[in-house]
């Protein structure tokens, strides 16, 4: 079973009296365990595609299936549950909850699942240690560097043991060295845990690390190559 199946997906946005077609008939299948980079210029439709795969947005037409479940047939609450249980997100701007500490941010998904506090805290501490944040568990986001915040975001994305992690420009706000560390970390997690990673990125370092590169142009898949 494919983890992502996209068939003939279009997505239109209305801006004033104009309709902008962000995606124009995209077909795509992603298998479990893949490490995929979606490349393309700004406005090519990368982020739109990622949002559709994560159920954060719906297609104008076509079908988006995650593990064989059609997203447009699900309610908002069911899509939330799907994200909570099967999908992790990593954003360019980290998007941590500022009032929560690193460990509280990272354990959020487990908390939403109603996991027992003791087990939840132990698991999250281990994950934070595995992403190199041992000793920083109780710091708030504003007490962490950009790279450290992105590590917390990755810990949050994988804490719930998802099948799929969607990362939108995860290295764009980081310096080159920190960006490399983050890419290596995600590649390790992909290998060690078998989590599928899909990146929307401009970063050539991510492209170099990816085992499959999808190039988008004007809302269409221009190129899809496996290494």
């Amino acid at each position, binding site marked *: 079973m494919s983890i992502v199946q996209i068939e003939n997906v279009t997505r239109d946005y209305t801006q004033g009296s104009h309709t902008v077609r962000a995606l124009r008939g995209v077909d795509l299948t992603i298998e479990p365990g893949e490490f995929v980079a979606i490349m393309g210029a700004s406005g090519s439709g990368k982020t739109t595609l990622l949002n559709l795969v994560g159920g954060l947005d719906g297609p104008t037409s076509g079908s988006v299936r995650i593990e064989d479940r059609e997203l447009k047939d699900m309610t908002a*609450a069911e899509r*939330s549950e799907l994200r909570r249980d099967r999908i992790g997100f990593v*954003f360019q701007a980290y998007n941590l909850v500022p009032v929560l500490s690193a460990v509280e941010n990272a354990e959020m998904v487990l908390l939403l699942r109603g996991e027992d506090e003791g087990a939840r805290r132990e698991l999250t501490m281990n994950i934070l240690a595995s992403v190199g944040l041992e000793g920083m568990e109780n710091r708030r986001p504003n007490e962490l560097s950009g790279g450290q915040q992105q590590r917390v975001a990755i810990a949050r994305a994988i804490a719930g043991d998802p099948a799929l992690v969607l990362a939108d420009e995860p290295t764009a706000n980081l310096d080159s060295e920190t960006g490399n560390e983050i890419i290596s970390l995600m590649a390790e997690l992909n290998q060690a845990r078998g989590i599928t990673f899909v990146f929307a990125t401009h970063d050539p370092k991510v492209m170099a690390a990816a085992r499959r590169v999808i190039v988008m142009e004007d809302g269409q898949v221009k190129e899809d190559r496996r290494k």
Partner: protein
Amino acid sequence: MLLRMAFRNLFRNKRRTLITMTAIAIGMALIDVTITIQHGSYTDLINRGVSSIAGHVVVRSKGVSDDPESRVPDSSAHADRLAGVAKDAKVQRRIMLGGLLTSTSGSAAVQAVAVEAAVSSEIGSMYDEMISGDWIKTDRDIIIGAGLAETLDVTEGEKLVFMGQSGGEMTSRLFRLRGVFKTGAADVDGFMVVMPLAAAQEIVGGNDVATMVTLHLDDAGAWPEAVAAARTAFEGVDVDVLSWKGAMPDVDAFIKADRRIGQGMLFALFIIVSMGVFNTFLMSVLERTREFGVLQSIGMKPNQIAKLVLVEGALLGFFGVLLGSLLGAAFSYSLIVNGLDFSDSMGEGMSTSGVVMATHFYGAWDIPRMIIFAIACFIVTFIAAIWPAWKVSRLEPVKALRNQG
């Protein structure tokens, strides 16, 4: 975690939270102070009315409202019967009598209240307002208001003649001025006199008659039970048994109207407070739109996000109301102990239906109403958070994430 997040969210913008909480607290404190002043003034008005022109329970002849001169015979028997209604209560017989009071210097129309001197001094009324002389001791003594004393140009010890009407005939009786009272209300001080019951019975020509027989309770709040017991005790007797409300309908109507006005003001205060809270919540929610998008992206359901905002509203309301209640209780305590002196602004004072209103108000605890209004204030604050919570639960994740707020 929801509670912890809500708590921390409130303290993200400490200044805004403190301003909102202070607004709730001041609103709540004002409500408590208003309740305390209202309850104090009503209690005082009722007490004054009960002690001067009525009682907690009033027994009078049927149809007295049609004929003010109508009186009950056998008032002693009624007094004995009424005394059995409540332990340690005091029973008073009164005659209300209009007439003309004449001194060597002039005459004035007066309203006489004839009382049993010993009981009357115990239950208060004009006894508490004496400014010179003594209270009634003999059947020849009369007490008059300061304004009347001035009009008639009399001092203690001088003779006064009261001329009253009974059964269509005029009767005169000689009195000696024993003392002078001053309530501050010109219409009472210039019009009212107090005389012994026996003297009034002599004037109206009835040995045992009274306009009313009244029961005065130590615990004023027990009047409904006392009225019920009195009605049972007087079953089959040809008299009316009334509560203080029935005996002083104007005072009761005044309190009801004043309370309604007060409640209108409190309602306006509620609206102002809730608009403030609503504004705060809306701002707080709108500036966190992106964060709510993030929470949705990691799997928080729309109803969980709404709950988070509602918990924030509940916390803000709870602590605002708690702080306000403490402040209100402190101000109320001061009003109960020290009171508020309006004698300068109220000047001569006022009366309603012959009951003098105090110019120095003392508050009184009305704990049940304070609790009801505290709960209402909390609910209003909570309601103000409902729309922002609903709005946030309807956010589309992708639009929320694009928000730069």
